[in-house]
């Protein structure tokens, strides 16, 4: 196999079942019973149900679902903080499920790291010692780990707070410590378990920007768990929608908004302004015969919202061109149907 096209993370048929004899549930017809019925019948609960996906190098992969959909369990299965019941997890070509306790510890110390919803900071340690914790347990000398800690502390914008205790920082600042701690070991993959759910909306937006900025700077592969669709659409290169432990749809933000796989996903995206996500590629239509094809030209990757004013003011169809090729035209009608919904009747 060519290692260059190998995905960084590859998950095949992953299951996590809680309860007595969980292996028996995997793949059986019972696994698809409604939750209460399954519990009644076997005493088991399926948290993750036959999940498969790939994440490529440098990608931000978001798993979105409501509470209880199994997304937090899923992300813990990837690093075996929760032991999966069945399935495969490959990380950079290594079979995680086959790793020994020793090997798993090595991987956790160097290759991947995690940011938690409730931060999980140690209250009795100052910011520096929290950030340096992973390096400390790996046996790095005090001066070396403090040096590295200071680097990541300034990377996440916490200079000046390194000697504070976590309780002396605001929630947003605490999660910056969590970010710095996860970055300290310079991992290849970072896992985020609803890291901003506990924060105020304004601070949450700052932190999302921070993640986007960090992603540009450090180019880590990220798996990001959230229950917030706006957050998912904002951060994700690709998004997986999870429901009752299974993936309902995996796709780019545009794909989810434009072509939801079922009512469940459609319900999610309904209230989200499509014009913020969709590009012209999705709304261009074939020109009708005799239509004016002399209008302005726009690229298919332009987001509808950004093109709206220009198209509405053009007074004639705007051409969507991919290089030399005409993909279609867009008029005020198409723009309006994205912003205000399609014509009725």
């Amino acid at each position: 196999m060519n290692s260059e096209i190998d995905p960084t993370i590859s998950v095949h048929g992953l299951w996590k079942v809680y309860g007595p004899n969980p292996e028996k549930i995997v793949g059986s017809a019972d696994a698809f019973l409604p939750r209460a019925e399954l519990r009644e019948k076997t005493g088991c609960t399926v948290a993750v149900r036959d999940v498969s996906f790939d994440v490529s190098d440098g990608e931000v992969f978001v798993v979105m679902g409501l509470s209880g959909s199994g997304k937090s369990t899923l992300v813990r299965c990837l690093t075996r903080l929760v032991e999966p019941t069945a399935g495969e997890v490959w990380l950079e070509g290594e079979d995680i499920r086959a790793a020994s306790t020793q090997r798993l510890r090595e991987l956790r110390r160097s290759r991947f790291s995690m940011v938690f919803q409730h931060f999980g900071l140690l209250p009795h340690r100052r910011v520096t010692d929290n950030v340096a914790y992973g390096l400390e347990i790996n046996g790095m000398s005090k001066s070396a780990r403090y040096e590295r800690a200071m680097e990541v502390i300034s990377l996440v914008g916490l200079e000046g707070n390194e000697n504070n205790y976590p309780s002396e920082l605001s929630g947003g600042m605490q999660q910056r410590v969590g970010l710095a701690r996860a970055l300290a070991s310079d991992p290849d993959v970072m896992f985020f378990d609803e890291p901003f759910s506990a924060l105020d909306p304004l601070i949450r937006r700052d932190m999302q920007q921070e993640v986007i900025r960090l992603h540009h700077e450090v180019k880590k592969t990220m798996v990001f768990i959230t229950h917030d669709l706006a957050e998912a659409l904002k951060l994700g290169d690709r998004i997986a929608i999870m429901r009752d432990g299974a993936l309902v749809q995996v796709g780019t933000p545009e794909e989810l908004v434009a072509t939801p796989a079922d009512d469940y996903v459609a319900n999610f995206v309904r209230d989200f302004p499509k014009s913020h996500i969709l590009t012209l590629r999705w709304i261009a239509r074939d020109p009708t015969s005799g239509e004016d094809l002399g209008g302005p030209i726009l690229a298919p990757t332009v987001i509808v919202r950004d093109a709206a004013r220009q198209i509405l003011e053009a007074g004639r169809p705007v051409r969507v061109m991919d290089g030399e090729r005409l993909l279609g035209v867009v008029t005020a009608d198409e723009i309006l149907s994205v912003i205000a919904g399609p014509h009725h009747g």
Partner: protein
Amino acid sequence: MANATLVHEEIIAPRTPKSLLGAKFAVLGVIWLSSALILRGNSTLPLDRSSLTSVHTWLSGLSSAIDRNRNSNPFFVNTIDKIRSSINTFVNLLQDAISQGTATRSVPQIGWLGVVAIIGLVVALWASIRVAILAVAGFITLGLLGLWQESMDTLALTLAAVVLSLLIGIPFGVLAGLFPKFEKLITPVLDFAQVMPTFVYLTPVTLFFLIGPASATIVTLIYSIPPALRITAVAIREVPWSTVEASISMGSTRWQALRKVQLPQAKRTIVVGINQTIMAALSMVTIAALIDAPGLGRVVVQALETLNVGRSFQAGLAIVIMAVVLDRSTTAAAAKVQIATSHKKPVSRRVTRSTKWLGLAITLVAIYLSNVYLWASQFPGAGLLGIKVAAIADSATGWIQLHLVTVTNGLTNIFSYGLINPIQSVLVDAPWYTTAAALVLTGYLLKGTRLAAVVAICIAILLVSGLWSDSMVTLAATLVAALITVVLGIAVGTWVGRSMRVDRILRPILDAGQVMPAFVYLVPFLGLFGATRFTAIMAAVVYASPAAIKLVADGIRSVPESITEAAISAGSNTWQLITKVQLPSARRAIALAINQGLIYVLAMVVVGGLVGAGGLGYLVVAGFAQENLKGKGLAAGVAIVMLGIMIDRITQAVADRRDVHAKTIR
């Protein structure tokens, strides 16, 4: 008005299952009472104080057989004696240091000046200077009371027991905190050790370890390991899982997570556990005087046995001072541990480095002086304060007995004839089988055959012990004391629970009341009421009330604001609010208060055997004193355990039922 009732009914939930059960119990009670009265005097299984049954002789024989084989049996020679001698060595080491002279030296290595300086320094460093001043003043008072050496014996024994308790309790507590299965395994053992009246360990332990410091330490350990272990387990479990998980996610080993994440965060709670361990140990060390442990407890026991009120006041006061000093110091130390998670520093922490060195230097000089000079070794003065305290107590008692005799006798008589005698005579004169049947049925109605079986087994063992009648005497006293305790608990607890102001005033007193060693409660009541059952019962009420009051108050306080608001907006007056909303919602707390009240009271009623309460407690004490009653004393100990188990299981079942009710409501 109709509206208000409707709302109340909604809030308080369905009553039917409870009232049905209540009706069954009412019927059961009426049947038991009427049959007991009709058949009174039949099959009451009485036994004279000096009479023995074959079981008692057998137990005496068993204990003599153990004594005879002590020097030949490999188990004794290799295990028991090793344990005994190493504990003795440890205790003797501490005694040589602060309380007793040795063969070559008639005074301890460190005299009073040195001990006071060490206490002052240690408390100043770990707690605060203010508490250190209190501790130094307290210890000097011990000397002024003329009880320096006895106090140091008590301190040495307490320290020995605390060190061993922590050495055993903390590691096992950590294990219990980490492994729920292990905790499940040991919980019944801990329950048993804590529920049983401390009195009953004494005899079996002496059987194996003889009387003296080793036995005293071991009985103390039985009582003081459980709090250390439990609180450590709670402390470990309380550590937010998110921090542990984060640490594991970064590749910590289990040991690293424990050492760097869990233990540091658990430290504060563990220090609280050390406080409780110390208080439990002090309480038990004083009671261990009954098996010849040296110290303040022995002074109290001797004074109680000779009804020397003045002397018992002296020693009682010394125990109270010791308890206050130990409690305040460790509480302050625990409060200080918390600080390390922020930069806010308490004012008292401003002890500079140079002050520390100065303190250390002064302490070293004091230790040297107290080692070399007699004036610094033996507390000067002839315990003048002690003589004064004794004189005041004696004259106060004399005055009371002269002038208030009508009041105290009146109280004694009202309670004796109005409450104690009727209950006791019904229980003692009832045929054993009616009472036994009623108890077993109670168990069955509450929790089915399992509880019924437990009760039946307890009753069978009571019958075999040959002490049914004495057990009923003890049960009667326990029920009376528990009744008063529960009434007091609900009344005062409601008051405390409803008012933050009252809470602020009363809670420190209740807290202090809970840490006092059980013994000291007998002293004032002995002065007031002389050596009677009533003294024991009142001491038991005072001993048990703080726990009951606090449980009820916390129960009342935990009723959600929204519920009380709804009731008030429906137009309830205060009385309706208390009786229809707050007390019913606090049912489980009240049931637990009844449970705790009974357990505490049983422990104290038994100790009351020392001051003429009769019943099983008297037999246990008599068993210590007279060789031929040893077997009977052992049997009485077993009978107390059986009563304790029955009372605990039945009241726990009541509390659990309350719990089930609460769940169906929601």
